[in-house]
């Protein structure tokens, strides 16, 4: 009951935050010089002033800022994210199309990074200064320092051009007409390189953090106490140290989970992955207001939800925490 009330309270207090974000986003985006009509006309090479006026009228850019804001808010209140005139498509359908590939890539990369990172950190910490600690530390240092786009391109050179094992880019083989498991296999093959190049950075981060965190916890008094009670080292590690050591990792993962919806522009660009990152980037470049505002809005909501989830996970890991 107390738990449900807490979640309800948190969601309620998130409302003003989201409203603030809506207003701020709207104002910020209008501060940027240039508009969608001039970008569209610019790409066309030439256009008459009448044509551009008609475009602006169609886009609703000829209305006052206040009027545009009211339209936007009333649309949002009706769960309508608006229409992208530049793309001649509904914003919600544009985002939905990308949501699947984005979450597939991000969840795969993030999940792998988190799971492997924690395990590697544990392995390294339990054998401190042994060869496996040194190997893991070295690998994570290299992975942490390597730029994702370079890693991606090198993988393409090796695995696509050199060995011919994996496709260079895209989400699936277009026009191949795969179905069932063949399709899963096909998408999986396309997923490997983008997921790895994205995951390696996070993996290094979590492994290093996990290692440091475990080493810090093993010096604590409660570990000495447990040892004095006669508990086995294994039991001390799994029952006491691990839970405490996970807290900083969960905190960091929570902050970074906000990127899940945003996608990764760099990796999406290198591998031609149809993600939300490039969609947002192009929308910003072309001043596609409805689209960019919708992506901002959804990201903001997601961050609020994830923050709440992280707090709940804290509570589960460490019952001493107040909620």
């Amino acid at each position, binding site marked *: 009951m107390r738990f449900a009330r807490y979640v309800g309270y948190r969601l309620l207090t998130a409302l003003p935050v989201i409203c603030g974000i809506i207003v701020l986003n709207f104002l910020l985006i209008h501060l*940027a*010089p*240039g*508009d969608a009509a*001039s*970008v*569209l*006309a*610019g*790409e*066309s*090479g*030439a*256009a*008459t*002033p009448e*044509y*551009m006026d*008609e*475009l602006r009228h*169609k886009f609703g850019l000829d209305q006052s800022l206040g009027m545009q804001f009211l339209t936007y808010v009333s649309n949002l209140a009706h769960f309508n994210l608006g229409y992208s005139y*530049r*793309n*001649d*498509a509904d914003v919600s359908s*544009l985002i939905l*199309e*990308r949501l699947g*590939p984005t979450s597939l890539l991000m969840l795969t990369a993030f999940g792998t990074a988190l799971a492997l990172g924690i395990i590697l950190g544990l392995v390294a910490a339990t054998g401190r200064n042994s060869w496996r600690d040194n190997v893991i530390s070295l690998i994570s240092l290299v992975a942490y320092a390597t730029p994702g*786009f370079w890693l991606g*391109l090198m993988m*393409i*050179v090796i695995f*696509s*051009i050199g060995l*011919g094992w994996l*496709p*260079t*880019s*895209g*989400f699936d083989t*277009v*026009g191949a007409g795969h179905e069932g498991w063949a399709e899963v296999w096909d998408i999986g093959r396309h997923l490997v390189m983008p997921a790895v190049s994205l995951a390696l950075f996070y993996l290094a981060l979590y492994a290093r953090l996990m290692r440091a965190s475990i080493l810090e916890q093993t010096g604590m008094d409660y570990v000495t106490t447990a040892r004095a009670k006669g508990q086995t080292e294994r039991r001390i590690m799994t029952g006491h140290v691990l839970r405490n050591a996970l807290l900083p990792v969960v905190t960091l993962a929570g902050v970074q989970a906000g990127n899940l919806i945003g996608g990764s522009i760099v990796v*999406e*660009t*290198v*591998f*031609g*992955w*149809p*993600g939300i990152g*490039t*969609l947002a980037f192009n929308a910003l*470049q*072309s*001043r596609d207001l409805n689209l960019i505002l919708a992506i901002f809005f959804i990201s903001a909501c997601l961050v609020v939800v994830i923050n709440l989830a992280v707090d709940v996970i804290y509570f589960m890991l460490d019952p001493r925490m107040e909620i």
Partner: protein
Amino acid sequence: MVDDSPSNKISRRTALALPLGLAASSGTIFSNGFAKADEPVRGGTMVMIVQPEPSTLAHYAVTAGNIPPIATQIYEGLVTYDWDQNPQPSLATSWETAPDGKSITFKLRERVFFHNGNPFTSADVQFSFMEILKKYHPFAPLLLAELTGVDTPDAMTAILRLANPAPYLMKALAGRDLPIMCKSVFEGTPVLQNPTANKPIGTGPFKFGQWDRGQFVRLDRNDKYWKPGLPYLDHIIARFIPDAATRSAALETGEAHFAGYSAVNYADLARMKSNPILDTTMKGYEMTPALSVLELNANHPPLDKKEVRQAIAYAIDRKVILRDVMYGYGQPATGPLSRLFKTVGFYTDDVRNYDVPDRLEIANKLLDGAGLPRGSNGMRFGIHLEVNSFGEQWLRQAEYLKQALAIVGIDLTLRSEDTATWLRRVYTNYDYDMNEPFLSQGVDPVYGLNKQYLTSQIRKGVTFVNNSFYANPEFDDILNEAMREPDHGKRAALYKKAQQILAEDCPLVWLIDVQYVSVFNRKLHDHTTGPLGTQQAFERAWLEK
């Protein structure tokens, strides 16, 4: 009909001469053995790279260069062009221009059907020209300015009525420039909101299939195409890969068969050429002239002085830009028109020559004469250059320009902004000194010259028109006369004079006559069958099995 380009024939021979070891090492490409390369084969899916992904396929209202490679597979024009740029029958079977030049009568092809099953008639021509193109096509104010109406005496005859002769119009009737749409699809709906904007319906060899945004557009064979037996391909996939290195890799692995319009970085071309499964061609861009230029804002002193503008033109070594920025693709520009207009007799290099051995002395002398002595730091004056936001090469060009102009004492400050901000600054606020755009010159001098240099084209808020405030009544008269002159010889003489005046007044500095390059897989044949290249249908393209 026009046949394959010579370069393709050579490439086939080289492909056949490949050592077997090489062929085997390039994976599955040759695994089915060599098909007989001269006999077209039905079937197959061609993958082409289009860069960047178009925002819309509303080809009739947006003329961005990444739309035609897809849209011209679907929409056709009244005519098409042979290698000499003469009109050839397409949706029109014959045409005749009236002796006074004020009307053109088109006989239309019978038994042509749109992809929705509707028959093609003169009503579609009339509606396309008067209700769609004349009203919404960005080039209509130039190309269709004289068009007053389209008469349809019968279902298979369309007469374009003109207020004055428009000799350039016969050059702009291909599907790339003035496409024909289906009347019943558009009638009674707002044109700009038409649902077929992104699901186009035309008469072309390929039908629209599917668009997965961020990934690809799929086009399917039009089984009822009016040219019997064509097209050869079952599908065309236009893939969008944002990263240049990955685009090259997709060609190298054979995942993609074709990349036109320099979708492959110039820097990668040498590697592409050495790849046994790939080849390149510079053909297919004969009707796509373009110049890279410097626009100078004559409202910002000292750029109002002709001598200063000429000095800038003298100070730049175009050969360095060609070598270091364009990787040798293209030629130094000699004046305001691309060399590609030589084919139709409009280009002249009999103009003031800025590429002379003593160009630096001349530049310094001109600047001294303009009352701009060097200061204590060696600089005469400082101006800003707006860096073109459409790609990395423009930043490299800007870096060279800064060095080149410093030699004659002009201190250049580079300013990089995103596209929307850049367009607003340069074409609406006019808050710039020097700008380095890339100007498409269209199919006739009327396009490239009129919009860039006529006094009437100083139009605040309109992109890529006269923003250098060049205003010369004598020049305006020549251009307006040339626009309506039906006699080709007289027109050519007028344009020669116009080019000489421009080169002397130097409102812009012309840098490079751009050369695009296509990269293709050697299994793909007959992809470049005319001067419009990628911007015409791949109806005759075929893939070796």
